[in-house]
């Protein structure tokens, strides 16, 4: 029997971001485990794109993401004092937010990018640049850590879901079938 020590299935966790159509923002749909980024994208496709619509997927190792809820930021502002290493070069960070408490299958949404030397600095800048009435959650993701699905694989990876109409509830006429049966059956 596989014990906890074997690390048999506990591969690194990757967060997945799905873009439904070109021009729409990437949104976090959930996570998968995978031994590498390539497998993370494939697992992500199997787990999150069994149905349309998807144009592009991003996978990011979870440990590379700076995630902070509004509660965490209010409770502890120690992150503001995280020093910037003297040799830290500016790099691009992608900024994600959760701004609603409405019921949803998705979590944070990509709102824009900025350059900073550390993730904490990026968060500080983002709070000004992407200020919104209610930001419940911030995710700061280094752009260099994002694995992107190939544009030329859109057809083979994501389009087949469109033809699998039997996965959609609209493909079944059970409601009208039952209405018809009840109408024609003497009670």
């Amino acid at each position, binding site marked *: 029997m596989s014990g906890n020590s074997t690390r048999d*299935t506990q591969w690194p966790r990757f967060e997945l971001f799905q873009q439904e159509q070109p021009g729409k923002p990437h949104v976090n749909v*959930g*996570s998968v485990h995978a031994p590498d980024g390539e497998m993370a994208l494939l697992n992500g496709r199997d787990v999150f794109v069994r149905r349309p619509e998807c144009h592009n997927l991003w996978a990011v190792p979870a440990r590379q993401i700076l995630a902070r809820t509004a509660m965490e930021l209010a409770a502890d502002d120690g992150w503001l004092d995280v020093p910037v290493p003297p040799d830290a070069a500016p790099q691009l960070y992608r900024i994600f937010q959760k701004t609603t408490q409405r019921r949803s299958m998705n*979590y944070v949404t990509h709102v824009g990018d900025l350059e900073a030397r550390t993730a904490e600095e990026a968060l500080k800048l983002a709070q000004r640049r992407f200020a919104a009435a209610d930001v419940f959650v911030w995710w700061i993701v280094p752009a260099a850590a994002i694995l992107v699905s190939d544009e030329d694989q859109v057809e083979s990876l994501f389009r087949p879901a469109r033809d699998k109409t039997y996965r959609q509830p609209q493909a079944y006429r059970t409601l009208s*079938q*039952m209405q018809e049966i009840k109408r024609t059956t003497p009670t």
Partner: protein
Amino acid sequence: MSEAAQLQQFEERIARGEKIEPGDWMPEKYRQQLIRMISQHAHSEIVGMLPEGAWITRAPNLRRKMVLLAKVQDEAGHGQYLYHAAETLGISREEMIDALLEGRAKYASVFNYPTLNWADNAIIGWLVDGAAIKNQTMLARCSYGPYSRAMVRICAEESFHMKQGKEMVIQYAQGTPLQRQMVQDALNRWWWPTLMMFGLPDSESYNSPQLIRWGIKTRTNDELRQEFVNELVPELSALDLAVPDPELRYDEESGNWIYGPIDWDEFWQVVKGNGPCNEERLRARRQAHEDGRWVREAMLAYAEKQEAGLVV
């Protein structure tokens, strides 16, 4: 901030309808209850692939085969959504999978009953998935963000599971006497295990009050069970199928279909491992885990070579 003040703030947030997210403060009991519920739910999705999965190769036609394959694939995905939701609470998927494979974990006892013929898939789709949707629709309103999101995603997908089953039951009910007999037999065997899926009666469900106060559940077991029975009985009777409950009666005053006593001794027997298929289900899971080992090893070896720059 003191623990009492944190608890007060936490309960106020839930009362306002805010979601609790990973990283937010939460009482230890809330975290433990959620790990218990979400991991059991994840295991149920994974074990739930088995009763129907056995019929994929014996589907009566290509359409039914594609539909069943898609449904079972969905259950695998649902298990992953849920393991990942539980992981945000500080348990690892591997710990949960180990608990399942070693027989320490619970899962929905309904999956310990056998699927004897194709009509069972029809009844499972309509009744078992229908009952699961009732529970999951409630849980989509759960106060814990990751569980709620997993449930919203799952409900959107389960709707097709229920409808494909119902479509088949309708077809059987309008078929030959032998086909009608097949689906009636399946209904007779699955009706009571389905009602047990909603859990113990409210009078004996000790976890419920706190789960409701913390917005994990928003309705009770008996409420959901009654709503399910009220919806199913008129539909089954329109199809001229008999509910296997001699005491079933309509109560004018409440508008409820009152069902007879549920055999909770049977429920506990199955939960304790003495159901018709408990051993078979665990054996199949362990076998699948062993059969997949070489794939996991190959994936890891490839990742390591890639890391070392040995992949060209």
